[in-house]
């Protein structure tokens, strides 16, 4: 993105995400130096703390742990963050198609 959080002040709660340097996997910020693979476990920053959250995330980018930090707006469902934008939900969930070797049937 080219994050909304970077570009303009957040108006909704945000989580911070990036790709892990070693394998490129999508990760979500919990605390300084701590990233997890499940968005549900990410720390949610209220709009007024988004700038501080971004600074925390960028420290890990400078430390070369993660790549491409940005903020993603979330809604809280059962107390857990769920990204608002479709693209971010897809990043959180993985591809919507099987990411495994094809097993197919023949056409009828």
């Amino acid at each position, binding site marked *: 993105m080219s994050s909304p959080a970077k570009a303009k002040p957040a108006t909704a709660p945000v989580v911070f995400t990036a790709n892990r340097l070693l394998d*490129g996997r999508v990760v979500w910020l919990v605390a300084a130096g701590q990233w997890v693979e499940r968005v549900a476990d990410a720390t949610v920053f209220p709009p007024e703390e988004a700038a501080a959250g971004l600074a925390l995330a960028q420290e890990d980018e400078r430390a070369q742990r993660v790549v491409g930090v940005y903020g993603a707006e979330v809604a809280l469902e059962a107390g857990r963050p769920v990204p608002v934008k479709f693209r971010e939900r897809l990043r959180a969930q993985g591809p919507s198609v099987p990411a495994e070797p*094809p097993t197919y049937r023949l056409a009828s």
Partner: protein
Amino acid sequence: MNAFVAPIALPNPAHPAQARTYRYDAVDREFLQERIAEFSDQIARRLRGELTEDEFKPLRLMNGLYLQLHAYMYRIAIPYGILNATQLRQLAMIARRWDRGYGHFTTRQNIQFNWTRLEDVPDIMRALADVDMHAIQTSGNCIRNTTTDEYAGADPEEAADPRIYAEIIRQWSTLHPEFTWLPRKFKIAITGAPQDRVAMQVHDVGLVVKRDAAGAIGFEIWAGGGLGRTPVLATKLRDWVPEAELLAYLEAVLRVYNALGNRDNIYKARIKILVRDMGDAFRERVEREFARLPQRAYRLDPEVVAEIAAHFAPPPFARLADNPPAYAAALAGNAEFAAWAKQSVRAHRQPGYASVTISLKPIGGIPGDASAEQMEAVARLAERHSFGEIRVSHVQNLVLPHVRQEDLPAVWQGLREAGLATPNIGLVSDIIACPGMDYCALATARSIPVAQMISERFADLDRQHDIGECFINISGCINACGHHHVGHIGILGVDKRGAESYQITLGGSATNDAALGELVGPGFPYDKVTDAVETILRTYLAERAAGERFVDTYRRIGLGPFKEALYASA
């Protein structure tokens, strides 16, 4: 490797003796080892934190390594879409050992792996080099993999073999020092057949190899075609460039583009914009540049051409007759085999042989994906039945180019066991689709599940045959990697206020009658796009005259009836 160097024939265990592919020489192999050492060191420095992402990104891109939505993606070059069995088996090994057991064949006849770990890349590079492969110039603003006809050397109507010139262009363009940082990426396609199967007119440069009345080789040269945000059909620059002058002319085209192409605005940086804006002045500049180039330095020596041509000499075909009894009996006695043969088996220039197109579009599958086991099955079949050769087509299928007709039942059986015998080549479920938002960081909507839904909707083969030839191309963003502009039915996924929306174009074509599709109207939401395609095809079936393909009917009746059917109830 970085200049045009006459190849030295060396024994190479990476190449089965009979397979007709490019040959690395000692210089190529030495360079590749140097590049592996260099990029491995850059990766190590990146992992140690000594290189920032800004510093590392251009280095990894020049080596084919992207960072996509969920992981790194590694795009491996398959020069002009030609593989031998050893190479395909090695790709299967890489898929299994360092990825998730599958790979994705692309519209540039390459393969990409979606789940690469940065730390594994040096090992993968070494495994590729063991079979004379690499991932260099599969990204970046350089000359990318030249694509060609998947039936090259087998097509009965071919005027001249485009592989020879694709190989010459590969050697000329690889690490060309002047063209490593072009204004934007640059794609060349070359065909030697009267039927364009390479989408020549939507490439930065399109080449047609021809013969004159005396049998001499020359090239028709087109430039300025492209898809993406601003689709443009190519302009013919020259009807005839003699073989000896091919590299000089290409050099002139690239020099003019390199000098005058827009470097300030990425959306206006491709050569198509320059050619469109300059009109005839572009051709004049190219001719002036061509005239002032030292022709001797660029002259394509007939001995060099002959030496490369020897690598693509016909394999040791047996003297056979067409329609052998075993093939005829299978066609008559096995309806399933006959249905497959009708779509997948193609006439060959050598009597008694055929080319087999292998569908990587099983019903409900992901277009272009193949598992490691499937790659190994194809490699095995190629060794047994096709002189160890495999081709990748730009429509994301594979080809066994030289199969004895008497072996076709056995090949079909082998493909069937590997789930690779879907008889849908050229039909509505033979869909081109880019990775879309399921994998690609640039995408604005998903492509793959749309292709899967359409494929499922039209799963019934009788229905597909009734509809006949119809190419559906799907892109997940305006960059058009799924070639939607030139699909008979083109589908473009965009983001519309946070939701996926799919615009449909009709009447595109990527072949001799190249055309850009026309937008039919407002977009459709994700869950309505398959219904829209069905409405379009029902309209075609209702309107078509005898013998008309979808695109013929569209050209006769225009957008109106389709628009009316799609939006009447809105």
